[in-house]
């Protein structure tokens, strides 16, 4: 048994909600310790679907386990067709948090949004309560606006809103055009409007014909390069006006009647809506009409291709001017709309969807995100004093274009984004390294963040905008996975002096908050290893540094050197207490040993979060594999083997990275090396653990060493 607290406007009441209760927009409810307000959903344990008899997937059952941490916003653990009852506790936490956060988080797996919509769908169309309709529609429209850039959500909402329109008003007046092919068929609203016009003997609006043809899944067009749907629509309108001055008419006599069966997007019910439509012919299923409409559109595209936007028969159809006349077919857009929208987002948490931003600017979202488009967007935002990260021009190497981004306030508006300077790129590397160390134990402490900010503030030759951008980058890295490959690549290009400075920063970061979790120590060791320090030196630096005064090391700033400075007034860290080393190495080594002994309790899991996994920070002795029986392996595998056997354990990411360096896929490489080892020694070389840790079988190595 369970109970859920439901706080309605009438006051607090406790209900044992065995059958499902509808949580209305005015209700507040706490599920799994999460207080939800304003969301509309079914809560309870029993709400059978009208088909199949199982509980509805969207039913939030408060008796089910909800995780306390680590919400799965990315949807790594959920199915295509999520079911609240079958979700993992982490996924439930993400879903509930999303509902609690006003259903507006940008970085959320669309399945959660859809699951929420399915609940509203049932309430709106099946369990219809007149008094709630307004609230339900408002919520759907709000979500449609918030997730306008997501194809699946948009598609589901379009169908649902069309059906709601029909059910509630008995007509379909607002075809919701997407300008894209709809694989499920021509939207009902479009078919209805066309049929209605044909039945009344009226000419058909060219926009409707265009929408019909472009959303017909049975035909495909190759659109002219550089064209946009609004431009093409405008061109089509011109074309129709020129070649069909009397209007577009299609014979309705041979067309079948339009039927409408609404299958719930959530899959739980089916509604026959034919009776709600006044009988009209379905021209979208009339071969003659379809052919004629397609020919019209095809001709327009051909003319567009041959003559361009301003060619004969086509007026100067600038998208912005054209779109102004399209009314409900497109959002308001343009530079000022983009600016206003961006400031609005900045007032929130600043996280945005790139596609949504482009839609505010261009009037439509691009099918493919191009680097140049993002750069132009960044320039456009810079004009109003807003910066955006990630910006491809400000990465250590051309990075993947992401759907999401973060806005930040720049020092002052500018005509465009300044090119990334050398000092900026050096400071970015410092920030990335520092963040990667800080997060290697799974959490970033305020002390670590303060140190990173200090590094940013005290790095030489950075402009104010650079500093603000770096802080935004730091914030972005906090939210997103940090790619390690660019860091390791950049380290490879550093001078010896720069490497030494970076090594100091790594040690400082490990010690920044006075706690030295094994993960940080291990990851620090990995980085130091990449920076060229010997295993002995690494061990000594990390251990000695932790045994003496803890705090960032002051480095003199140098031009063209990677440097950072300590805040002189920073209080001393207290772990472990002790005075700065005075050359009494034996004592310090003793302390080192003690510190190491303490570390035995620390978990391996932490190591997996770092880059290259290490044998608890240690590396095995140098190995010469040239005498091993390597004939069965190709060069790439031999080189990989040569690297792998130098450590006792690896984590997945590190192995992946090294395999990639040798043009190998990690799992394929593990298979090949294991097969080789098994054939040669009867045992597997690499044992993969569930957590991703890969152990190098030392027995196999011993056997090969012996044989060699």
């Amino acid at each position, binding site marked *: 048994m369970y109970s859920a607290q439901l706080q309605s406007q009438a006051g607090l009441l406790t209900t044992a909600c065995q059958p499902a209760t509808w949580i209305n927009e005015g209700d507040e409810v706490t599920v799994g310790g999460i207080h939800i307000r304003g969301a509309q959903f079914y809560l309870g344990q029993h709400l059978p679907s009208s088909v199949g008899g199982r509980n509805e997937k969207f039913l939030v059952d408060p008796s089910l386990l909800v995780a306390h941490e680590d919400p799965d916003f990315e949807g790594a653990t959920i199915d*295509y*067709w999520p079911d609240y009852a079958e979700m993992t506790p982490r996924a439930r936490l993400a879903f509930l948090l999303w509902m609690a956060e006003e259903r507006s988080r940008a970085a959320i797996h669309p399945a959660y949004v859809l699951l929420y919509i399915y609940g509203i769908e049932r309430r709106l169309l099946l369990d219809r309560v007149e008094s709630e309709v307004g609230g339900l529609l408002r919520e759907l429209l709000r979500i449609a606006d918030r997730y306008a850039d997501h194809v699946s959500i948009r598609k589901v909402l379009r169908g649902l809103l069309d059906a709601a329109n029909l059910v509630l008003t008995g007509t379909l007046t607002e075809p919701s055009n997407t300008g894209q092919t709809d*694989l499920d068929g021509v939207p009902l609203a479009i078919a209805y409007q066309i049929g209605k016009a044909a039945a009344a003997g009226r000419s058909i609006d060219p926009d409707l014909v265009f929408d019909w043809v472009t959303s017909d899944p049975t035909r495909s067009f190759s659109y002219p390069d550089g064209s946009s749907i609004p431009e093409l629509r405008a061109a089509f309108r011109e074309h129709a006006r020129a070649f069909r001055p009397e209007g577009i008419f299609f014979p309705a006599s041979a067309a079948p009647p339009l039927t409408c069966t609404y299958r719930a997007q959530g899959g739980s019910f089916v509604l026959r809506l034919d009776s709600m439509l006044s009988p009209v012919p379905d021209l979208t299923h009339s071969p003659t009409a379809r052919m004629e409409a397609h020919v019209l559109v095809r001709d327009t595209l051909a003319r567009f291709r041959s003559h361009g936007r301003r060619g004969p028969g086509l007026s100067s159809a600038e998208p912005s001017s054209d779109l102004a006349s399209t009314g409900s077919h497109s959002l308001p857009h343009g530079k000022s709309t983009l600016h206003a929208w961006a400031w609005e987002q900045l007032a929130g948490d600043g996280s945005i969807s790139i596609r949504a931003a482009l839609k505010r600017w261009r009037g439509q979202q691009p099918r493919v995100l191009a680097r140049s488009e993002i750069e132009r967007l960044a320039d456009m935002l810079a004009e109003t004093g807003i910066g955006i990260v990630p910006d491809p021009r400000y990465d250590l190497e051309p990075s*993947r274009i992401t759907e999401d981004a973060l806005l930040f306030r720049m020092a002052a508006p500018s005509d465009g984004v300044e090119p990334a300077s050398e000092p900026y790129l050096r400071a970015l590397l410092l920030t990335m390294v520092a963040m990667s160390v800080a997060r290697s134990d799974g959490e970033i402490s305020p002390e670590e963040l303060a140190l990173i900010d200090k590094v940013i503030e005290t790095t030489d030759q950075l402009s104010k905008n650079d500093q603000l951008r770096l802080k935004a980058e730091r914030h972005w890295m906090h939210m997103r996975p940090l790619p390690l490959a660019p860091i390791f690549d950049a380290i490879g290009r550093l001078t010896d002096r720069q490497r030494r400075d970076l090594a100091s920063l790594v040690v400082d970061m490990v010690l920044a908050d006075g706690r030295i979790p094994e993960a940080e120590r291990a990851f620090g060791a990995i980085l130091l290893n990449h920076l060229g320090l010997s295993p002995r030196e690494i061990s000594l630096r990390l251990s000695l540094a932790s045994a003496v005064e803890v705090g960032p090391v002051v480095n003199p700033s140098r031009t063209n050197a990677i440097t950072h400075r300590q805040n002189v007034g920073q209080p001393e860290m207290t772990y472990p207490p002790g005075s700065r080393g005075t050359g009494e190495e034996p004592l310090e080594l003793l302390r080192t040993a003690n510190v190491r002994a303490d570390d035995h309790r620390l978990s391996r899991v932490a190591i997996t979060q770092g880059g290259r996994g290490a044998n608890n920070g240690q590396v095995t002795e140098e190995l010469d594999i040239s005498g091993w029986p390597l004939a069965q392996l*190709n060069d*790439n595998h031999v080189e990989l083997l040569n690297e792998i056997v130098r450590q006792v354990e690896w984590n997945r990411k590190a192995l992946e990275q090294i395999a990639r360096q040798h*043009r*190998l*896929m*990690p*799992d*394929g*490489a*593990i*298979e*090949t090396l*294991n*097969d080789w080892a*098994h054939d040669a020694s009867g045992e*597997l070389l*690499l044992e*993969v*653990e*569930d957590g991703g840790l890969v152990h190098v079988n030392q027995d196999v190595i011993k056997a090969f060493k012996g044989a060699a």
Partner: protein
Amino acid sequence: MTKLKPTERQAIIQSLKSGQTPRSGLTHIQVGRVMELEQLTNDLATAQQGAAAMRFIIGDYGAGKTFFLNLVKLQALQKGFVVVSADVTNDRRLKGSGGQAVSLYNELMRNLVTRSHQEGGGGLKSVIERFITDAVARGEAAEKPARAVIRERLGELQDLVAGFDFADVLNAYYEGYEAQDEFRQQAAIKWLRGEFASKVEARKALGVRTMVDDDSVYDYLKLLAKFCVLAGYKGLLVQLDEMVSIHQLSSGQARQLNFEQILRIFNDVNQGTAEHIVIMMGGTPDFLEDERRGLYSYEPLRTRLAPNAFARNGLVDYTHPVIHLSQLTRDDLQALLEKVQGVFKSGETPLIDKAGLKGFVDYCFRKVGDAAFRTPRETVKQFTGLLAMLEQYPGSSWQQFLEGSGGVVTKTPDAASLSATSNRATQEANLAGLESFRL
């Protein structure tokens, strides 16, 4: 035999206590079944040569079907086979009209293992990456694009169902890897696992027009078998356990459909159409012999699976497609218990000496309903319970527990041994299971 690792030991003990088959370390507790295992080893060798085989492993509940399947699985992995396995249930079966067959295929793919990847479900990825890595290397050597090499190497799959799309999907995986586009890679894996909800979705993600459906599961398995060989493995072993679920289907039509599918596979395998594949189905005698609901209710299968008329008087035809797992003999049981004790107290003085083991076997044979009790599962479960008691009450002897002459065991359990045994819940379960031993 390899040395038993502490983690392996703990896992085996846990599994045995709960009456389940351990996932690893089987060789440490294996006894008997030599001829059966040899026959399956032959099947694997045949499949490695390019042929195919199908076996029905029939035995009562607790007779060791799952154990035997796992043993063969280990053999297959050692030989370099890829193994997919799943339990058949009401919702996961060979043939269905509502996605049940695809569910079975999903489960098989999720449980795909190789010699390197026996845990964690990353096996399919390994197979794919091994194939692609090899193709990339070949491409580099021949100065050809990897994409072309992949298509070329998969040319021989194109005669099979979905062969063309298979090549496209692998190319998509490779492109995703090159572009560090995890979504594309995941989409390819999803297609291979049959996890796309619809063809439309698959086409959107990968541009392919087909995907596994309820009618094509077996075809996809054949495709996978050939692909595994191209990727450098010896073949594919498919293990379907709990086939009794088919027997328990309430709908006669559904049973009939599944029997037809089994017949199709059986014919395919025995007529040489399938290659590099061994299929094993584990079930109870009901599943096979029930003439109303079992395989024998379907005439074409009954005639094919009828026992060899000449295998009588204790003689067994091990080449027959049906392998009956007989009861373990008294000697087998004793050997099994000896091994279990070896796992329990590895390298130390045994808790029960040879006489004790014999006493326990006698006890099993004396016990009312001994036929059921003598299944390896029940015997081992009770035996591990007895060992647990002896471990916790160091001063007690096995006779006290078995013979009923030693009075009530009242000693306080040894704290050290208690902490050594896993957790309180397990202990309570053990104690509950052993109430019958208290005097």
